[in-house]
């Protein structure tokens, strides 16, 4: 398992960081923002004002470190549902993402034109097939993009994950499979998921597989940058397994106390990627209480503004059910739309 950053914030022997001071602070900023959104969304959900939320908590280095290897102008993200800061960095405005979970108008919350992000994917591993097709299609058209496809170690058990990776190998599609092994699929532990090592599957598909410390921003960034460079150079896909820990519940409907072994969470919390990156910044002499407070305040303001913007968005309307299902809707569906609108107007 590749690691660059020690828990105390120092680099491993001979380790070398590819991120300059500004980028390190940018990364920390995304990570703090993500952590804050998790807290805010959870609170809103408890108040009945937010849909199901799946926190990124604990996995911020994996998400942010991989996303920062991408160029939003040409590269694409095929997300699962636990990659919020990656999407925001890539150009999907935070208020839209929040608004979507708050039942705001789908027109107001959809992915903006020109933002290279696919919709969140709940049907596990299905997005990997789309990612491969998209990457292959870009390549066929001589366009420069690389697709970063996120999935969990649970999703990796689905047939779609195999079919997608095998096809990617055959077509040398410019795609990076970013497997976030956070040790849990709801209550199912990593051992129940597979008897093998996830990153080793790549070899069977004829491309490189690497395992990195997913709580080490520098290691994730390094692996992702290399993979993106390879993909861009026409050298095909890479599977990156980020070994990390889910530090929160699976989602807001879950109660991990029912199944986490005693002490597991406490041990996992020692690996929290945020203090580790802060320690690194401090080790580099770039960090102090003041800097931290300033960044936290900035992030808090941004999140609050996004929440307010989301609340101010127009609500969903009945016709939203119909308006973007078909480009050319069948007559029967048109009639059903009319029927609904009439029905809604009746007392």
């Amino acid at each position: 398992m590749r690691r660059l950053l020690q828990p105390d914030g120092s680099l491993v022997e001979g380790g070398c960081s590819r991120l300059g001071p500004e980028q390190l602070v940018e990364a920390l900023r995304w990570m703090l923002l993500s952590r804050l959104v998790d807290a805010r969304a959870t609170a809103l959900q408890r108040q009945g004002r937010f849909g199901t939320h799946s926190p990124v908590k604990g996995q911020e280095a994996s998400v942010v470190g991989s996303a920062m290897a991408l160029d939003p102008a040409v590269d694409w993200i095929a997300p699962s549902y636990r990659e919020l800061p990656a999407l925001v960095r890539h150009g999907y405005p935070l208020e839209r993402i929040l608004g979507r979970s708050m039942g705001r108008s789908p027109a107001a919350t959809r992915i903006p034109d020109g933002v290279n992000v696919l919709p969140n994917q709940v049907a596990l591993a299905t997005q990997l097939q789309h990612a491969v097709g998209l990457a292959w299609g870009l390549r066929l058209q001589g366009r420069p993009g690389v697709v970063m496809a996120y999935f969990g170690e649970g999703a990796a058990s689905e047939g779609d994950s195999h079919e997608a990776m095998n096809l990617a190998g055959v077509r040398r599609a410019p795609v990076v499979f970013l497997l976030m092994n956070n040790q849990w699929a709801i209550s199912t532990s990593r051992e129940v998921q597979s008897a093998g090592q996830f990153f080793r599957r790549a070899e069977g598909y004829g491309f490189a597989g690497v395992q990195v410390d997913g709580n080490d921003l520098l290691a994730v960034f390094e692996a992702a940058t290399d993979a993106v460079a390879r993909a861009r150079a026409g050298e095909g896909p890479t599977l990156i397994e980020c070994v990390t820990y889910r530090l929160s519940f699976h989602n807001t409907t879950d109660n991990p106390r029912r199944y986490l072994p005693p002490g597991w969470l406490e041990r996992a919390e020692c690996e929290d990627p945020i203090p580790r990156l802060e320690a690194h910044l401090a080790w580099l002499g770039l960090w102090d209480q003041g800097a931290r407070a300033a960044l936290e305040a900035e992030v808090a303001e941004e999140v609050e503004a996004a929440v307010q913007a989301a609340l101010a968005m127009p609500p969903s309307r009945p016709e939203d059910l119909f308006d973007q299902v078909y480009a050319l809707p069948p007559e029967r569906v048109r009639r059903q739309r009319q029927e609904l609108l009439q029905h809604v107007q009746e007392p």
Partner: protein
Amino acid sequence: MAERNIVEAIRDGLAFEMERDPRVLVLGLDVGRLGGVFRATEGLLERFGPDRVVDMPLAEGAIVGSSVGLALSGLVPVAEIQFLGFTHQAFQQIGPQLARYRARSYGRFGCQVTIRAPSGGGVRTPEFHPDSIEAQFVQTPGIKVACPATPADARGLLLSAIRDPDPVLFVEPQRLYRQGREEVPEGDVVVPFGRLRVARPGTDVTLVAWSAAVELCLRAAERLAGEGISAEVLDLRTLVPLDVEGLTAAVARTGRAVVVQEAPLSAGFGAEVAATLQEECFFSLDAPVARVAAWDVPYPAASLEGWYLPTVRRVVGAARRTVSV
């Protein structure tokens, strides 16, 4: 007898069958320590151990496909698919394999397998979780389809399902899981397949439903009663076998029927009910068989589901129109 809601009745039914028949085992996602995302298998791991209550890798095809194999080995698997919408991930193993294994082997191998899956909307679940795709399984002969709507039926039909030598898809109404308790027998009380239930008697119009839509029809019947319309509510209980006789006899009595389904209109099981009714009691019908369904669009985000699903108002409207023909 004890007061139980649907989840409790299912849990109790599972435990009863596991106690009764050592061949029965439960497998699925998160069915062990967690007790299932709806707690339907809560306590079973502690009681029956990890060989009979098995957390599976995250692959619906493997859950169903290995259940076929477990059945071939002589065991009686009860598989849980976390939500009916995710049976699509296992479709190649359900209709063409599980359902047909007896036919494929001309009786050499049967598959005594039950697939349990929560289904239906109205509880603000994420995408794919609320999809009502039960009609798709009626098109794959060899598998039976049970859709209980009450705690007593949930337990009684579950016992029938597990004991049935044929494979059964057991669709559970997630919206009703914890909505209301009723007396549920604790012993060996089965509810047979293929016999509908009169959920509420009536004389002017017959409302036909299954799963959570039965509850909707009961509310509509209540409202209709206030308008002086006596609506009978039929709960089909099983779609395969379909109680054609019971259905046509009941509708022949009122001469008017409204079929209510949570699935989108087109090619839903409501179409089969309407087609069958007009075939079997055409000359007793005073009005066309009406259908109330979700629209022919995908299940929407939570904020839109109230406009998507059939409502009491739409059922009442259809019943009113049917009665006034």
